[in-house]
């Protein structure tokens, strides 16, 4: 076979497994291989048709009808949703998401007894997993199943199972075309690398990770700071059960997973944490919950402590409306109902309102850290998979200035 110029897509078998990772058959892996390729194809080869359809067909028709340009991303969406090419592309992408969920759930549910037993063996009797059945699933996590994951982060097929977390873990590789690395932890690894490079002497005593789900991104941080006490909270017991077992299996024993809602951090006193953070979580909140979590995070943050929120880039006035529209796709087609509103927020203003000084705010670019001999870097040009490229902005602030 002659070589082609396109860099190879990593095979699903390159996924790093651990003691609670589902066992994946040859054909199940092949199904994810197809979806990994198909997602890449949709983002790059076929995806460029969206902009062409917009520029050649949709925008001229809009101008003809209204005698002006679209004034926001919603007007572009309404016009594009009538375009036959964009509709076919969207239908393809939606199906790809649904097929990923189907395969993940099929893998997990057929071996649920074994997975539950394996998780139980790692969880039982450990004080580092604290579940609280009185915690309510907030409306912003229950209104729709986020990412089209049946059951969302909190769903159970039977009481006390780990199906939600295991499905999330085994399929994220396909959704992100492998760009997050073998443990899909490239985001957390990037944050750890950024901190070690920029603040090599900083040693946080206690860290709070809010909305940790199954701990993809807090595990590499806990491994990078083994002397630090990590507390990871989430409202979804089903994800925490799996996440705790996964962290134990990977040797990150300095994380305590607690079922708790980040909107009320009153169980921790003022200034308890040196670092409060979220990773790809703010977009799954609501208009009231987001500032509340940042306010509470500020309160429990110690002087010269770090707040850090890793997200896809915010929609700034400088970002072209077409790019805002295409970045918004997941909001309306992949059950991310707060995505669009969140990305239009001025996070710096929200953080200032919580109490941070403007001079202490910063934005840093972070790219997934992964073994580049197997996992290619995610493209961040026109061929990127908008909304889920493995490159983010870290919206941060030091409370009262960075540590000396």
């Amino acid at each position: 076979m002659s070589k082609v110029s396109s860099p190879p897509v990593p095979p699903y078998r390159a996924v790093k497994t651990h003691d609670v990772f589902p066992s994946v058959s040859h054909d199940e892996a092949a199904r994810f291989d197809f979806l990994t390729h198909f997602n890449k194809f949709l983002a790059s080869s076929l995806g460029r048709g969206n902009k062409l359809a917009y520029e050649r067909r949709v925008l001229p028709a809009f101008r003809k009808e209204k005698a002006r340009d679209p004034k926001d991303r919603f007007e572009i969406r309404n016009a594009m949703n009538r375009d036959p090419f964009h509709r076919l592309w969207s239908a393809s992408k939606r199906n790809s998401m649904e097929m990923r969920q189907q395969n993940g759930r099929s893998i997990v549910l057929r071996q649920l007894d074994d997975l539950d037993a394996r998780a139980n063996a790692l969880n039982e009797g450990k004080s580092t997993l604290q579940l609280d059945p009185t915690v309510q699933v907030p409306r912003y996590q229950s209104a729709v199943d986020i990412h089209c994951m049946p059951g969302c982060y909190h769903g159970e097929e039977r009481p006390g199972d780990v199906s939600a977390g295991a499905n999330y873990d085994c399929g994220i590789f396909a959704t992100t075309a492998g760009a997050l690395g073998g443990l899909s932890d490239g985001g957390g690894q990037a944050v750890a690398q950024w901190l070690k490079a920029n603040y090599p002497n900083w040693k946080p005593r206690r860290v709070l990770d809010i909305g940790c789900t199954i701990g993809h991104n807090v595990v590499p941080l806990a491994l990078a700071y083994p002397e630090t006490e990590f507390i990871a909270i989430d409202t979804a017991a089903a994800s925490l059960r799996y996440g705790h077992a996964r962290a134990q299996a990977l040797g990150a024993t300095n994380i305590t997973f607690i079922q708790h809602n980040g909107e009320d951090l009153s169980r921790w006193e003022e200034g308890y944490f040196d670092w409060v953070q979220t990773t790809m979580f703010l977009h799954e909140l609501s208009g009231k919950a987001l500032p509340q979590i940042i306010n509470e995070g500020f309160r429990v943050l110690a002087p010269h402590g770090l707040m850090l929120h890793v997200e896809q880039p915010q929609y700034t006035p400088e970002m072209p409306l077409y790019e805002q529209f295409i970045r918004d796709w997941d909001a309306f087609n992949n059950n991310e109902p707060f995505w669009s509103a969140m990305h239009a927020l001025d996070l710096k203003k929200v953080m200032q309102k919580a109490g941070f000084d403007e001079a202490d705010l910063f934005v840093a670019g972070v790219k997934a850290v992964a073994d580049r001999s197997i996992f290619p870097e995610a493209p961040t040009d026109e061929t990127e998979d908008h909304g889920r490229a493995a490159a983010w902005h870290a919206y941060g602030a030091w409370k009262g200035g960075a540590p000396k």
Partner: protein
Amino acid sequence: MTETTLDWMALANRKPKGKRPEYFSDPHNEQAYSVLLALVGEVSVMRQRLDTVERLLETKGTISRADIENFVPAGDVAAERSDMTREYILRVMRGPMQAVEALEESEPPIETICDELLNN
């Protein structure tokens, strides 16, 4: 924890909560396209399994099902299989890809060319 009495084959296919967007003007097309893409995926799975069988036969002469299940492609093998899947998707998705090319070219309808050739 109880023993599994779950019908996992059916449950795997559950619909997520949240109204599904409509992409085509005819609802039957939504379902036909979902079936079609699922089949496209399954053919890719069968091709990959066949590739695994061929490679195992080449290197070992005999194979067992366990060999297939434990097969891990690495290095050049992984790259060749990546090419195979990419080529397959491009071929299956020829129609939509040609629509992208057509958008790039903005060609006149064939009747216009017929008229042009008739009169020249």
